[in-house]
């Protein structure tokens, strides 16, 4: 017997999907926020195999995007590219990236045969959830962006994540392709000698290089001789063209490379992507070299999935940043640029991006430090960020969030003049008001929030109609 949507009838799964959709609809009506895990919890209660079954119905399978930084942006770009190519894309766009959130995404958009083009899922996946999702979903493609220190109160150690990933990756067959950042030596070692096919991407660039691996970066030692790598070029954190002088291991040749990057402003860059049958210049509304990596990763994945370069180029030119990641908001006549900071390497990159365009940090900044579970309860990481570069700027720095005092203290020890450090307290709504009020008419400023602070600020601004409604995208 075949159901209306063209699949064999599975009463249990049907009930799971219907129940999950009810919960999801209810929570929206009641206004308790989108992207919640509740529908996923319910679905897995009703049918413990719901995730496997729903993933199995995707005609072109699932793509997982994992890594410390850039997974949201990479997944979004890839989902847009695939949609532009006429596929029906199921995507956890609201960022629900744990097992239940991924299941909720699949129940909300359970594939129906013969409509909207061939179905494919693009699933941003949390580092901790990746092993389980890999095993249960059997993806056709996995994008690994990078691995940095982040939320060590939750994961304890980067080495522990690597070990758990390796165990799960070893079970993949030749059916799966891994799209891996070759500039990250630990990801190359992680994916060496697996059954799965591997496509390596990276950056080949001379303009935007660092003089040394910044303190915030993970020091990656050669797996064979335990000596630190040397670099022909360092692009970001420990990412670059690495090599072990001792045993000669080095970055493998790139299958897909980003070249000739031109970082124009906070919301525009252009770069050339070569390899895998592409040699195209892309223009995209995203700042910073960290986003160049996201673009190259998404293009490499798109090529592997058969998207023509011209389609990707058009799609990218329409791309709009994920919320809070490089988002400009006009509030009370002031232009506020919201740039999410989650960990030391990411925060250093945001500061580098700002200093690249806003010479000498001339615009005021609001630094929002929260210590919720999604930010990491341990705020020690701020001591690995190079805030010292703000000490010589003449501008005012405002601190808010649950750990505003730690943020003020960090700036104080960075050598910022005490009269330039302004505490604005834990209430982020009030803090944004005070910050905007302190800016001149038509002036502009930067807001650098941690994850939960970014959500809170966005929520607050959306209530006042300055942004699209929460989770609406």
């Amino acid at each position: 017997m075949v159901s209306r949507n063209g699949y064999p009838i599975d009463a249990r799964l049907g009930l799971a999907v219907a129940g999950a959709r009810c919960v999801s609809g209810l929570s929206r009506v009641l206004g308790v926020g989108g992207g919640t895990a509740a529908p996923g919890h319910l679905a897995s209660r009703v049918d413990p195999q719901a995730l496997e079954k729903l993933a199995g119905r995707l005609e072109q399978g699932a793509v997982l995007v994992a890594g410390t930084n850039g997974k949201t942006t990479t997944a979004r770009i890839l989902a847009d590219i695939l949609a532009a190519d006429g596929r029906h894309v199921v995507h956890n766009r609201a960022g629900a990236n744990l097992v239940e959130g991924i299941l909720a995404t699949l129940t909300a958009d359970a594939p129906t045969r013969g409509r909207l083009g061939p179905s494919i899922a693009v699933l941003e996946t949390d580092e901790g959830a990746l092993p389980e999702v890999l095993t249960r979903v059997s993806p056709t493609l996995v994008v690994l962006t990078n691995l940095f220190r982040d939320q060590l109160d939750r994961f304890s150690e980067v080495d522990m994540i690597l070990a758990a990933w390796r165990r799960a990756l070893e079970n993949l067959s030749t059916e799966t392709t891994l799209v891996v950042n070759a500039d990250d030596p630990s990801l190359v070692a992680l994916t060496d000698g697996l059954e799965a096919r591997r496509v390596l991407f990276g950056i080949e660039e001379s303009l935007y290089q660092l003089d040394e691996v910044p303190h915030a970066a993970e020091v990656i030692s050669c797996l064979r001789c335990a000596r630190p790598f040397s670099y022909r070029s360092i692009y970001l954190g420990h990412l670059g063209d690495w090599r072990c002088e001792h045993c000669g291991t080095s970055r493998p040749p790139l299958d897909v490379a980003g070249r000739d990057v031109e970082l124009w402003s906070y919301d525009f860059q252009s770069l050339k992507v070569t390899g895998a049958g592409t040699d195209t210049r892309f223009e995209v509304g995203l700042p910073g070299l960290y986003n160049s990596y996201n673009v190259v990763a998404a293009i490499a994945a798109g090529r592997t999935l058969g998207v023509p370069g011209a389609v990707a180029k058009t799609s990218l030119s329409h791309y709009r940043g994920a919320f809070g990641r490089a988002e400009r908001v006009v509030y009370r006549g002031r232009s506020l640029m919201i740039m999410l900071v989650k960990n030391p390497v990411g925060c250093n990159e945001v500061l580098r991006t700002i200093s690249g365009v806003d010479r000498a940090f001339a615009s005021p900044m609001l630094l929002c430090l929260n210590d919720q579970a999604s930010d990491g309860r341990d705020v020690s990481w701020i001591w690995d960020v190079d805030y010292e570069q703000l000490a010589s700027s003449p501008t005012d720095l405002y601190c808010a969030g649950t750990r505003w005092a730690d943020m003020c203290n960090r700036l104080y020890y960075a050598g910022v003049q005490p009269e330039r450090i302004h505490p604005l307290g834990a209430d982020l709504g009030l803090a944004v008001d005070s910050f905007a009020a302190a800016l001149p008419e038509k002036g502009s400023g930067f807001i650098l929030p941690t994850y939960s602070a970014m959500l809170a600020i966005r929520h607050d601004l959306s209530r006042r109609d300055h942004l699209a409604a929460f989770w609406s995208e």
Partner: protein
Amino acid sequence: MAGRGHVTIGWLYPAALSTYGDRGNVLALAQRARWRGLEPRVVKIDQYDPMPETLDIMFIGGGQDKAQAQVAHTLTDTHGPALRDRIDGGAALLAICGGYQLLCHEYVTLGGESIPGLGIFDAVTRASRVRLVGDLSVRTRWGEVVGFENHSGRTYLGAGVEPMGWVATGQGNNGEDETEGVVCGRAVGSYLHGALLPRNPELTDWLLLEGLRRRQPTIELEPLTNDWERATHEPFHHVHPARRQSPHRSQAAQRRAAAQTSTRP
């Protein structure tokens, strides 16, 4: 005040052992010296570097298990005798987390294997399967000391050994005997990240003075305001630290909390 002299800070294994913002400790020592007109000289000592002849203060941080295992041999064999010599010569020392463990007698792994430490501190550490993670505040001779702990090793002090302090909230050395850290002469070991010294300036100044008095027995450090440092202790003085929301925002806070259960950045 300029030209008052200098303070030399030896930072052991900044590459391998500096995982949890422990660099903040070196920044705090250097900055509080600078604010008193003393020139800070920070010497990074990596695995293959020789130990400098004169050091006023030494710092060693924590790292991941693999990194810690890599430097353990260097510390006990290559640098060990020199480090002991600098301590005997009057240098002050702060060791955090993994560094603290490496300076005890031994570290016993889950498999029962003993990895010898330097034995600066009369204590042993045993691996455990459960990590002790969270905010930690301690009553010490420097007043309230706060930070964040994140360790699976449990450290047990020898009989009569002075702890750095007594746990007020959190777990401390082993989650059992309410001790946290260790003090032995001018050497302090602790599990506290945070970073520790920028949030606890009385301890920072004590280390500076202890280290400097080797060369300048009468030196004093003028007091600083310590307002921001004290403000970072605020979250420990409330029942639900740092989770305060004004009443009209509590619904939004709940909503965010609900969203976070399914959302990871």
